[in-house]
């Protein structure tokens, strides 16, 4: 029985030690593990000033302008926004009001040249008629709140 207790303690202490080690590593690499930066982070200078990085946010409604394969749109985190230029094919889920992650370089204070555009999908799944119904009731609620 003593031997078994020893092994139990060994496993528990070992697991605790490894957890702490992994936690420390992840905390140390916190900034390297970020997949994208929000426009606010970019404007605050938290993103790399030179070189390629990813910018993420929501495609602002009515900001998409298409000219052949060239697309211009605004990425916003509802506090700040950046204008993105991109030439190429857009993914299926790219649309206004949806999440997007673009990879490229910052070329001006609020201008970004993207070499890749990735659409970010939300966690919601529903049939089209339910989505339309939801939209209608949300609009009605907003109207009621305004009047």
């Amino acid at each position, binding site marked *: 029985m003593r031997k078994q207790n020893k092994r139990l303690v060994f*496993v528990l202490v*070992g*697991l605790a030690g490894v957890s702490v080690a*992994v936690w420390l590593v992840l905390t140390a690499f916190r900034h390297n593990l970020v*997949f994208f930066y929000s426009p606010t982070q970019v404007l605050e200078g938290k993103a790399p000033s030179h070189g390629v990085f990813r910018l993420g946010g929501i495609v602002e409604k009515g900001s998409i302008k298409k000219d052949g394969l060239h697309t211009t749109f605004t990425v916003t985190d509802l506090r700040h926004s950046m204008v993105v230029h991109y030439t190429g094919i857009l993914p299926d*889920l790219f649309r206004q009001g949806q999440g997007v992650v673009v990879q490229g370089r910052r070329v001006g204070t609020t201008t970004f040249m993207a070499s890749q555009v990735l659409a970010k999908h939300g966690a919601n799944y*529903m049939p*089209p008629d339910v989505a339309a119904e939801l939209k209608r009731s949300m609009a009605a609620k907003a109207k009621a709140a305004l009047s």
Partner: protein
Amino acid sequence: MGKFSRLACVTRLIKLIHKYGAPKRFYELAGTLTPWFASLTTLLFVSGLYLGLYWAPPDYQQGNAYRIMFVHVPNAWMSMMAYVAMALFAATGYIWNVRLADILAKATAPLGASFTLTALVTGSLWGKPMWGTYWVWDARLTSELVLFFLYVGYMALQASIDDPRRAAHASAILAIVGVVNVPIIHYSVYWWHTLHQPASLTLTSQPKIYITMLIPLIIMSLGFMFFYLTMLCVRTRSEILWRERRTDWVRKLVESRS
């Protein structure tokens, strides 16, 4: 008095484990359970796929492409659940010297690896049209890939040591250490900005999946769970036969069959 009854409880539990934990007894028990598990799996898969592919409505944004989640999500869940099961089996075998637990851990590894690979491949196939890329190195995808390597490493370590006891001990350490990765996979979408979306189903909030899409998903998840149990029984039985091949009961079993 309290301490005495607790001790009696533990002794009884250990007796029970030893009774059903004896490879021969478990071989018989698993043999009885396998056909039940297998028919339940078939029933769940057939009804889940029918409901998921025909009955469930298309998604308001993804159309029909979302239906891959009926395979992707259960496999991703099972990849993590199987790992936790494997680590628990391995730890039980290591700490209390339960031979059956060693065998269960060994039998789980390739199953978990296949769940992980299926989750990665189906996710990748969905990612190309929806995200615009097959693969990104975000925290969720990377940690799930690490899970696959943990399974493969566990299997390689098992295969590289001939003595089953030593193989079980060495690989148990790897399995236990690797369990740290499971919460990282689960929470990656909350801790870091990832391309992968957060969970649509959580214990604490209302599901973000419409009910007619949720039902097939739950049925498919149960299906994969019973698929795991079925395969676990089959794999464990053959491993028991191999390890006990020199014992009387296996010899008698073989003679009675031939």
